[in-house]
């Protein structure tokens, strides 16, 4: 009956010697490839391949872009340029909001420094003061009373 030969708790692996050879080969191959990619010739070759790809694919890309643009126009859908333009405007709005936020933070800090208000902790909604509209109403009422 066949038994699994065990040495030092590890089963004998018939592939182990092959792995050693493989690692030596991979190591040598790796060093050769590193030397190769570090050469001027490789840089020149990859540059040429990339340049050729960009040049050859340009007419196809342009054709696809034009066709897509017309299709989207026919379907009354926004093109990539439209979406990009909106995204740019959104970022500008975000920046404006961030500027306003900075100004509000500055005002809040000044108020705190002046000691006219406690540290700004967000208060629960039911504890917040009533909106200014109600004050306007009361002052309006006073004005009316004064007229009377």
């Amino acid at each position, binding site marked *: 009956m066949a038994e699994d030969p065990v040495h030092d708790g590890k089963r004998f692996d018939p592939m182990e010697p092959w792995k050693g050879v493989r690692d030596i080969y*991979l190591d040598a191959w790796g060093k050769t490839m*590193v030397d190769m990619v570090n050469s001027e010739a490789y*840089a020149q070759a*990859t540059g040429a391949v990339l340049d050729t790809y*960009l040049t050859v*694919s*340009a007419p196809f890309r342009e054709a696809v872009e034009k066709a897509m643009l017309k299709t989207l126009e026919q379907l009354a859908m926004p093109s990539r340029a439209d979406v990009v333009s909106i995204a740019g405007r959104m970022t500008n709005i975000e*920046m404006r909001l961030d500027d306003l936020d900075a100004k509000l*933070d500055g005002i809040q800090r000044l108020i705190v420094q002046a000691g006219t208000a406690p540290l700004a902790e967000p208060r629960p909604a039911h504890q917040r003061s009533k909106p200014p509209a109600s004050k306007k109403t009361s002052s309006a009422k006073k004005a009316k009373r004064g007229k009377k």
Partner: protein
Amino acid sequence: MAEAPVLTDPFTEAAERLKTLTKVMSTKAAIGQTPKELVWTLNKAKLYRYTPVLPQEQRHPVPVVLVFALMNRPYILDLRPGHSFVEYMVNKGYDLYLLDWGAPGPEDKNLTFDDYTLDYMPRAIRKLKATFGVEEFSLLGWCIGAILTTIYAALRGDEDGLRNLILLTAPLDFSDKQNLTFARWTDERYFDVDKVLATFGNMPGEMIDYGAKALKPVENYVGNYVKLWDNIDDPRMVESWHAMNTWVTDNVPLAGGAFRQLIVDLYRKDKLMRGELMIRGQRVDLSRIHANLLTVIAEDDHITPSCQSEPIMAEVVTSESWRAAEPASSPGRTSMAGWHLVPSKDQSSLTCGIRR
């Protein structure tokens, strides 16, 4: 007569191995699990705060902001529980923030280092300081994130309250062209950066990934998988490989404007170290960095060799000399050449790491 199990056992094992291989090659590992909250956002950029685990009085008073590279996902810093730089720092009591640049879209193709360092970073820092009531902070930049933090430190560091600058494998010096394979590949004789960007807008993540892997093609395209197959019965190794592979294969494009600056101004003209880099009309003068500087250099880093990170010492340090700490001796850290501890011009004593 041979018993059946003796014959079927290797097949069962091989089937299990193939199953594991298929799983790790076709799924994404759970990464970036340390809890965090969103503090600020602008366009694709987001500032997160990692939820502190220690009470306020036990935490370090100066927060640390991690600024990651523009073309990778930042969760490599928080890869998996037990193997996470973020988790370690949070457990050590650091108030930790992450500035994640996100993935630029076609609308971001004109974003440059100018925008990142003078629009995004100051705004994020302002929000951090206003929200959490701190005056000083530390920056940790990795790779291109280290370029950004260095530029920011030179232009805005003093004004904004930068106390400590930590650079991790920072590619700042591009003068030694012989040791920089990327510099050779992107030489203007072979690589037309304008044509590439006119075609793609942003530099595609796949091309950046190819560039990084092609530096050591056999290790990355063959050896990496051979190593997995050899250790496929070891669940811990498989888990580690799976998490790392999830990060390595998750590439993001690099904004066209920033890529052009990286290639033309840095790789080709080495403007940062020459003191010629202009950011929105301001010259980036590295001698204006007054924050404490710690730069971590990996000895055998083939992407950012040490010759790119070391020269900043001479630019920033004047009277005191910098020194390299002893290389870490534990087997897991053999690639780390040393922690170069640099006192700033205004500090009389050597600063070890981040001061409390």
